[in-house]
């Protein structure tokens, strides 16, 4: 069994018995796409809701609107079935709950909204989500049983979704 850890705007695709990890999600969203039949799963650490228009070269895994279709492509190429694909997601918090609200501070919610809209457009059911709030999260996905462990540090909590 290997534990594969990804950073911001990175992705990984693997299969059971591997575990996929990303640490310290704030407004960022950790999205998992997995096929419970073949036990193939992929995780991506998304930073922002929408890719800027007219940019020649972008990292597709940075933006929700480009990361979701790209992850579907990668997990199905690895052997996951498009028809049994499910999603789980965590993150999208509002870290600074201040009075000087700007779009920038509200980015967590928009990250989650675009992820959900993209998943719906591609007809991928959301099996579980732990999003929003004002707290950071670390996540670990177990390709074997399809469970996503969500950890927080302040206060210390741990739950499986």
């Amino acid at each position, binding site marked *: 069994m290997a534990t594969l850890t990804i950073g911001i705007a990175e992705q990984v695709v693997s299969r059971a018995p591997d575990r996929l990890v990303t640490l310290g999600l*704030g407004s960022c969203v950790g999205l998992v796409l997995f096929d419970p039949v073949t036990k193939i799963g992929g995780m991506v650490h998304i930073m922002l809701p929408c890719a800027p228009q007219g940019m020649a070269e972008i990292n597709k895994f940075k933006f929700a609107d480009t990361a979701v279709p790209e992850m579907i492509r990668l997990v199905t190429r690895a052997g996951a079935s498009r028809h049994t694909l499910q999603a789980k997601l965590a993150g999208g918090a509002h870290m600074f709950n*201040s009075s000087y609200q700007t779009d920038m501070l509200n980015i967590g919610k928009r990250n989650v909204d675009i992820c959900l809209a993209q998943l719906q457009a591609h007809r991928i059911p959301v099996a579980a989500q732990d999003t929003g709030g004002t707290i950071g999260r670390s996540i670990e996905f177990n390709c074997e049983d399809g469970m996503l462990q969500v950890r927080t540090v302040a206060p210390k909590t741990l739950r499986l979704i």
Partner: protein
Amino acid sequence: MFDINNVNQTTLDFFREIENIGAGHAATALSVMTGRPITISVPRAQLCGYNEITHIMDGPENVVVGLLVGISDDLRGFILLVLDLNDARMLVSTLLGEPIENVSEDGAFSEMQVSALCEVANILIGSYITAISELTGLRINASVPELVVDMAGAVMNLLAAAYGEYGDHVLFLETRFSDQGQCLYGHFFLIPEIDSYQTLLTKMGIS
């Protein structure tokens, strides 16, 4: 248009100079506040990738204290001060004259302790803003600081949100404060909106 991926040496030197002046003022203010001599180290200014920042903070899951101030007027954006949880605890104990054992190990600060840290942020960030303002002649307003205790990765997501669209780097400024052998690191992040970066550099005749 300011390109965050292509910051030259002159620009970095300019920010280092701002840090020097800002931190100098801040150290004096902190000395007065604590009644102890506070010295500062040579400041650091560099470009960092997003995944590098959390390394500087001892990993994405390390618990840190983030103090955020919003800036408006001629310059818009944020200034974020990040302290390691233990450094923040030490600071609180110095400021309030309480033994460090009285300051919660997991960052569940009392109201008084939060006020003390916000006051430090006010002084430190205020000194920076004054320095920038005096150097450039730009008017800058600052909001009341807001405190967050959480994983470094989660706190630093603010930078990703601010600049993610423009590139893969952020400008990282670090100043080290020392109090009679006790050393604490104050990590400052100057987070102007991308247009404000240009305003700042144009005003200084750089770029």
